[in-house]
């Protein structure tokens, strides 16, 4: 039994981010901050060609340099693979920047000098920098299976979309494109490998140390029991720091030289060899009756995965979920196709395909409202999916956990406060004055726009947690997940401490090392708080029981009746007390291990939200200024309000880059990325950071731990369509192609004149 009145709960309070003190002191250690005695430094030779076969490589002059210890080439690395379509190194290069050879030397200057001495002989191949060229028949295959992944699109449907369009009075259709912008986490990829003859220790920025360990074991053909992966503090990833060749190359160099090897990517390399968001082309169509009822939605998305597939299948599926599920509608269809090109690889980036899909869907939705002469907010209030879910029949068997991206109807949501988000957000932005703020004359046009979203609510893979009461009277929570900068370690700690009934300061979190943590899924898909949280709560509940049983023995009671946990120890109703330190000393180590499969067999667990923006457009310069932004989210119980607000504000500002600035520009003639730097791939700065009001809907999810649902990625979904709709409201011009740079805005405005 836990005495709920013993101290104020931590959940729901803005408990301080656990690792922030080390970060402000400058003593938090990131991978690149680490070094080992006798460490070598590695540098990579990258392809100057977008598509070529490597015929031969002459490394001898480079190897003859005094400071050079080893050079990896496709001809000496073995047959291992980093991913199904990514060998450790390949005799074929597929984009400008692809890895060819890697030098280990005494310092980076010597390594760079050696790189310059490596002679590569190429058979240059025809190439494709865009999806249209890639899909043309007869064009050279980037991978043997062909340029369209799996030969065609994935297709998801509910009802009959043709019948749905037959029932419609109006059909509105349009096309949209989104850019392949880069997350450009401030910390470039890095890896530090140390091989001692039998064991490999790898330090790397990671969002899944156990997954990374499996990849290293498979690629290097080393027994996983002989590999330790350690995830130091991570300098941002936003989903993008999926495994690339970096750590495998460092490991192989260390195994061959017998010395520790550090490989740090430069900023340019991070842009080229990291992972960016898939650029997309979406054609979308919605059918409505005159009364505003939606009868059909059909979306087709084609996305550019670049040279390698990475997490493309997950991304392309997620791009369709808005079209399939955001509007109450019996007939929907989504087709999603992935295409290889000879450009830098796209992969996971915060909210995966959802921002792309929602940009098309929510821009189109405004056009439909326009067609019906209905206020866009009212149209959404009429048609958004409600708590009861979608019409139709459940097809998932009763005893199975419901997918968080369902297609079928007939399943209610565990919680759905989208309507509350729409109403609260509209109120905060002042939607009712929308008709009065437009400025018919002058160069500055003002407008208000909005959009809404749906997203996975948090159930992820099987999650484990170990929890113990240690000899010093403190508790340890052992988990295998990684805090990737978003603060999951803090919120999971809060939940565990509250469940146990002690202060969070009493609980140590142990994570980030594969040797002493249980298996855990990656920090991905906004699942951490929900899934690791459920595991932590269950572990804490079990440990509380174990602690109370141990205390009853120590106190000398026959049962646990009336015993309860306080912040200091265990008390009985009649006044006996044993503190945690004494209990640990007398009872020995008290511990428990749990494994949970997160999710629900009865409900869809999803998160929702609605965003609103008031903007000013300078029609002389094309510059758009965000005056005020409102984000209303249903993420269930908010475990840590201040961190949650930081997450929402940060996500919105980050996506102002997607909306206004960022795109990787690749030259069609050479395949060269033209803007692989912060100077040229411009991201939002503190100068244009807008006022952002964050609203959390009053919502408690019955499935989530403490009622919580996902929040990590959800702030990133709605910003672009919200701004697009505000731009339309301000100027009467609809922009279907992101980003809305001043020149793109000006070009669109001129077309109108």
């Amino acid at each position, binding site marked *: 039994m836990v005495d709920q009145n013993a101290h104020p709960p931590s959940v729901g309070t803005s408990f301080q981010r656990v690792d922030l003190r080390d970060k402000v002191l400058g003593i938090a250690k990131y991978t690149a901050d680490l070094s080992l005695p006798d460490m070598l430094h590695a540098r990579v030779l990258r392809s100057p060609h977008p598509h070529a076969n490597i015929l031969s490589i002459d490394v001898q002059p480079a190897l003859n340099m005094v400071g050079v210890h080893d050079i990896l080439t496709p001809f000496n690395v073995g047959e291992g693979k980093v991913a199904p379509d990514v060998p450790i190194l390949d005799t074929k290069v597929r984009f400008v920047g692809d890895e060819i050879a890697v030098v280990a030397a005494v310092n980076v200057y010597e390594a760079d000098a050696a790189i310059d001495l490596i002679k590569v002989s190429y058979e240059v191949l025809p190439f494709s920098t865009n999806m249209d060229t890639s899909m043309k028949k007869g064009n050279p295959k980037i991978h043997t299976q062909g340029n369209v992944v799996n030969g065609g699109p994935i297709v998801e449907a509910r009802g009959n979309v043709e019948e749905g369009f037959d029932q419609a009075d109006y059909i509105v259709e349009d096309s949209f494109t989104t850019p392949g912008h880069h997350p450009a986490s401030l910390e470039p990829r890095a890896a530090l490998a140390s091989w001692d003859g039998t064991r490999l220790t790898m330090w790397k920025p990671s969002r899944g140390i156990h997954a990374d360990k499996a990849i290293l074991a498979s690629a290097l053909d080393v027994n996983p029991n002989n590999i330790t992966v350690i995830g130091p503090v991570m300098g941002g990833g936003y989903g993008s720091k999926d495994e690339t060749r970096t750590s495998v190359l460092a490991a192989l160099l260390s195994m061959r030289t017998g010395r520790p090897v550090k490989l740090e990517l430069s900023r340019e390399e991070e842009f080229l060899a990291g992972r960016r968001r898939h650029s997309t082309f979406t054609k979308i169509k919605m059918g409505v009756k005159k009364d505003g009822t939606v009868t059909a939605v059909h979306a087709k998305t084609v996305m550019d995965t670049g040279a390698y597939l990475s997490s493309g299948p997950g991304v392309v599926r997620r791009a369709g979920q808005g079209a399939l599920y955001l509007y109450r509608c019996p007939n929907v269809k989504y087709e999603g196709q992935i295409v290889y090109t000879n450009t830098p690889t796209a992969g996971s980036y915060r909210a995966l395909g959802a921002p792309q899909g929602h940009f098309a869907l929510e821009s189109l939705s405004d056009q439909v409202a326009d067609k019906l002469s209905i206020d866009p907010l009212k149209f959404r209030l009429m048609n958004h999916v409600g708590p009861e879910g979608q019409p139709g029949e459940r097809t998932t068997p009763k005893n199975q956990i419901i997918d968080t991206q369902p297609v079928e109807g007939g399943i209610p949501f565990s919680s759905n406060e989208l309507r509350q988000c729409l109403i609260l957000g509209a109120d905060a932005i002042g939607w009712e004055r929308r008709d009065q703020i437009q400025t018919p004359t002058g160069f500055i046009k003002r407008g208000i726009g909005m959009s809404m979203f749906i997203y996975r609510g948090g159930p992820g893979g099987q999650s484990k947690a170990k929890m113990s009461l240690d000899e010093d009277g403190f508790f340890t929570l052992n988990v295998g997940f990684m805090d990737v*900068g978003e*603060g999951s370690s803090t919120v999971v700690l809060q939940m565990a401490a509250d469940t146990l009934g002690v202060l969070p300061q009493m609980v140590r979190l142990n994570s980030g090392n594969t040797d002493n943590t249980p298996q855990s899924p990656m920090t991905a898909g906004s699942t951490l708080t929900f899934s690791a949280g459920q595991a932590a709560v269950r572990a804490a509940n079990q440990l509380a029981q174990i602690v109370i049983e141990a205390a009853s023995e120590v106190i000398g009671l026959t049962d646990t009746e009336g015993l309860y946990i306080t912040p200091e120890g265990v008390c009985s109703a009649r006044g006996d007390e044993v503190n945690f330190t004494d209990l640990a000393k007398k009872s020995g180590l008290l511990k428990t291990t749990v494994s949970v499969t997160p999710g629900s067999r009865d409900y869809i667990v999803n998160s929702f939200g609605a965003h609103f923006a008031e903007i000013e457009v300078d029609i002389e310069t094309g510059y758009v200024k965000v005056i005020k932004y409102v984000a209303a989210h249903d993420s269930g119980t908010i475990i840590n309000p201040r961190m949650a607000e930081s997450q929402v504000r940060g996500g919105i500002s980050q996506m102002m880059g997607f909306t206004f600035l960022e795109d990787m520009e690749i030259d069609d003639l050479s395949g060269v990325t033209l803007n692989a730097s*912060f100077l040229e791939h411009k991201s939002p*700065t503190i100068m244009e950071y807008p006022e952002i009001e964050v609203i959390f809907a009053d919502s408690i999810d019955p499935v989530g731990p403490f009622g919580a649902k996902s929040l990590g990625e959800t702030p990133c979904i709605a910003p672009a369509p919200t701004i697009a709709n505000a731009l339309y409201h301000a100027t009467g011009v609809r922009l279907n192609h992101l980003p809305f740079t001043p020149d793109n805005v000006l070009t669109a405005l001129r077309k109108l004149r």
Partner: protein
Amino acid sequence: MENNVTQVAFKINGKEHTLDIDNRFTLLDILRDKLNLTGAKKGCDLGECGACTVTLDGKAVNSCQILAVKIASSEIKTIEGLNQGNILHPLQISFIENDGGQCGYCTPGFIMGAYPLFESRRNVSVEEIRLALAGNLCRCNAYGAIIDSVVGAIGIKADG
């Protein structure tokens, strides 16, 4: 390759150093690789992100853009020089209190970027804070909390 080395004397966080410096090294390289002061980060090595910001004779600079041989007789302050052991600098306290960092990679750079403003011992506007930090990128986009953090620290100073 011939390594030209220059002996350079300078002061970091109040402490005198005399080092034989490889002429190719930047101040950031010296801090990170020779002095184990890894608080300043290498985000771009091109002066475009501000993660390596330190102060050089009182001014905030991108340490990746300063050749180490040029720092002779200069006085440098890094994030590690702000706190006195467990006594944190008001900027550091305020960044904690206002959740002014998420992944934290940019945090030392932002704090050092704001430090000259703090040292100027005058009231500053939010616009001045933004301008002082315009060259620092935060890819978590914690800009709102960063502004709050700097405002909070300067407020502490005005009161004290």
